């Protein structure tokens, strides 16, 4: 392979990749590329970590991640023969029907009914708060729908990247980023923070499920300690989803993480939520209040947490359930939007920040299947690129509906979601672009 690879050659190589992928042939190991020969803001370290064997993919994803931050080059050069001159007005067409533009002023008013602020909830205690985290994450505090001009959003969206306490089956595009750290939750967590820019870590204690490994709560708690030592970002702690075991597992985990203000995931109506709430209060943590696409159930659980378990308002985050694009995102989207609107209009049982299990997007077959199971469909293209964008679009939709915290997996998805949400939040600068000549530009 040539030392320097031009973009055109990269693109050509990709054609082959597509074909291979469509035939279900694995492409790892088939392509070698000298990474050091590539310029343009490409980070060879990142690419190396993204998966040596699959350097081409890594190259593109790394570019993608790199691009969202530092614009490189300018691709909008006019095509040959295109005219950048102001349009010539043909005088023959000028007609008396129109004389002058009628002046008009655009008026806009804020929504008066949005009277109530969403609760701000901090996650993670620094030494100042009695913990050992290097920083604290704050979610919530909105007074309007996200990114709306009615009131500035006080806190940006946050991304927590998943870590599992055992090796699990993951979509290929996800797995190749984590393969070598999957046996060590500490290393995995480190990689998420150092390489993939995670704001937080979620450690899922799935091996505790009696039908998986039935790891005892005490042993699972050690994994939590390992992660807390490996990274200094705030962490969320998830159970296995087993309603009998989770309260025990989370209580033990809460104990070993005392004073760190972790997010315990999750309390729900079908398990002993009071036990989880109690552990959160006793050991200084937050509670994730999880319901399934049902606003009234969400109100009920929040009410129980507040009234019955005495959880303070600044320790509750809601997970109203995320369904993937194409698999119920319409319900998930509208459920969140309704919850947020009701909260802004004063429903005190819903004025909490929200969290999304965005990784559910990887359950959509469009994310991971080699090709469409339906013969009638147009070509689905290479799945390596479908998965990350599926996760991005699922997360982005919910960001617009009002979600604050995202539990995600693919590094590219994390980079792009952060870039777009922070652009809409208002903290990303970019070179101004002149749109006037878009028709003739070389797009």
């Amino acid at each position, binding site marked *: 392979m040539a030392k320097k690879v031009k973009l055109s050659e990269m693109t050509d190589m990709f054609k082959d990749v597509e074909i291979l992928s469509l035939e279900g042939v694995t492409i790892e190991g088939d392509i070698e590329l000298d990474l050091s020969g590539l310029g343009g803001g490409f980070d060879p370290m990142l690419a190396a970590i993204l998966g040596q064997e699959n350097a081409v993919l890594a190259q593109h994803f790394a570019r993608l991640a790199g691009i969202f931050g530092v614009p490189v080059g300018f691709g909008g050069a006019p095509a040959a023969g295109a005219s950048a001159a102001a349009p010539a007005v043909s005088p023959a067409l000028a007609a008396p029907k129109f004389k002058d533009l009628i002046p*008009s002023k655009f008026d806009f008013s804020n929504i008066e009914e949005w009277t109530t602020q969403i609760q701000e909830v901090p996650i993670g205690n620094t030494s100042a708060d009695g913990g050992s985290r290097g920083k604290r994450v704050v979610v919530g505090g909105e007074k309007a729908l996200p990114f709306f001009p009615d009131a500035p959003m006080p806190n940006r969206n946050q991304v927590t990247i998943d870590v599992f306490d055992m090796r699990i089956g993951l979509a290929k595009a996800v797995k190749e980023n984590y393969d070598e750290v999957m046996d060590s939750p500490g290393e995995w967590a480190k990689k998420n923070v150092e390489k993939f820019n995670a704001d937080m870590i979620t450690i899922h204690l799935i091996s505790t499920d009696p039908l998986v490994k039935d790891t005892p709560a005490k042993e699972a708690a050690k994994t939590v300690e390992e992660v807390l030592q490996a990274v200094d970002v705030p962490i969320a702690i998830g159970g296995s989803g087993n309603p009998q075991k989770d309260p025990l597992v989370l209580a033990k985990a809460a104990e070993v993480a005392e004073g760190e203000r972790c997010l315990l995931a999750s309390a729900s109506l079908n398990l002993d939520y009071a036990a989880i709430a109690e552990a959160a209060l006793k050991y200084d943590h937050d509670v994730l209040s999880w319901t399934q696409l049902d606003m009234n159930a969400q109100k009920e659980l929040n009410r129980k947490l507040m009234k019955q378990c005495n959880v303070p308002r600044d320790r509750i985050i809601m997970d109203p359930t995320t369904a993937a694009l194409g698999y119920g995102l319409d319900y998930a989207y509208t459920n969140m939007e309704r919850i947020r609107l009701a909260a802004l209009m004063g429903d005190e049982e819903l004025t909490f920040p929200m969290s999304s299990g965005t990784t559910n997007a990887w359950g959509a077959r469009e994310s991971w299947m080699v090709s469409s199971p339906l013969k009638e469909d147009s070509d689905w293209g290479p799945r390596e690129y479908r998965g990350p964008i599926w996760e991005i679009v699922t997360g982005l939709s919910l960001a617009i509906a009002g979600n604050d915290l995202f539990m995600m997996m693919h590094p590219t998805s994390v980079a792009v979601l952060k870039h777009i949400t922070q652009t809409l939040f208002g903290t990303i600068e970019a070179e101004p672009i002149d749109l006037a000549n878009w028709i003739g530009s070389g797009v």
Partner: protein
Amino acid sequence: MKINSPLEAYKYLPQTNCGECGEPTCMAFASKLIDRSGKTTDCPPLIKEKKFAKKLAELDKLLAPEIREVAIGVGDRVAKIGGDDVLYRHKLTFFNKTKMFFDVTDTMEEAALVERVKKITDYKKFYVGRNLLLDGVAIRAASNDPAKFAAAVKKVIESTELPVILCSFNPAVLKAGLEVAKDKNPLLYAANKDNWKEVGELALEYKVPVVVSAFNDLDALKSLAKTFAEAGIKDIVLDPGTYPTGKGLKDTFTNFLKIRRAGIMGDTEIAYPIMAMPLTAWMSGISDPISASYWETVLASVFTIRYGDIMLLHSMDPYATMPEVHLAETIYTDPRSPVAVDSKMYKVGTPDENSPVLFTTNFALTYYTVESDLASNGINCWLLAVNTDGIGVEASVAGGQLTADKVKDAFEKSGFDLKKDVTHNTVITPGLAARLQGDLEDKLGTKVLVGPMDSGRLPGFMEKNWPPKQ
């Protein structure tokens, strides 16, 4: 819509309860007018009888959507945009799904042009009982040459039935395109502060819809729209500019919100459909095409959700188009349509006593996905929809709505007898409900096979596992 209760609409109806509309009473029909599931044209007396003419006109005015509905193109594939009455879909529903137009230029080689147009026309993505499609072709006069542009427009309309947008700021070029496409009701892009008189004249002369364009200047945009409206142009589309990055993108997002909020709140001078241009992602200096495609998809997503009614797009890569068409479907699906199918035993194809028996949840999306995977691959079988309160498989197993008892109960209620109606005494559980296997075998007294994690893999699964080994 200026009224919101059936009683208000009822006042304008004949009030005879004749039933010709298919409703038992005029009041029932009035409810359908208010929720926009019926139109005044569905009431024959109101339309036919002269004495109701005045009432009909008044009622139509009251029922007109806040945002003007604009049609582009002709025939089966006409693209209707706008027509909305609400800012949030759960308040009613959004109407006229965001339309996706893909670009071509008049500087393309003819073969490449035709091939791209065909690709746009033929695109299909199956989704619960229907195909998601792309909507039209935007022809860019990159040459700025009237003759070249006319030739390209001709080629495009010969190659497709899809609606087209003629894109140039040069009135002479637009006129040349219009001459060729005048029977196709194309959308004119665009009138701006420099050319508005000439372009406005073209819109009037050829009776076609037209875009007014003012980048990041809502006063100027409104002024153009108002001037056109007063000159008798009804079908107007707004282009406030789509800046692809940084503060420019934030401004664009804000502009879309402001325009739509003002329109829904009753400012008729700006109550028109809005055009978004995600293809400007390709002008933002992203040199790598995959990254540019991703960013374009991101912009398309933002403006599908927040009030873009029509879009100009560039990337035809499947990883861009697929999420785009799915998200438009997501946001524009009527939230009032039921979440669940009836919980009962369904026949897929023509099953008999040797056919496999499967179950899934009654969540409509899950059910239809499984059903189409089976039907599309010619698998005859029995498919039981278990009542999980309309929750999908994975979530209902986690949440306790899908248990062995629930499945047993569903079999009993369906009247399907595993011992008599089939010979194999076997049930296939969804892969995502694998943990129910043991419990199910006990409760049902049958053999339970664990199916694949995704129903798209059922064909392969059946080949290997059916009929079951005894």
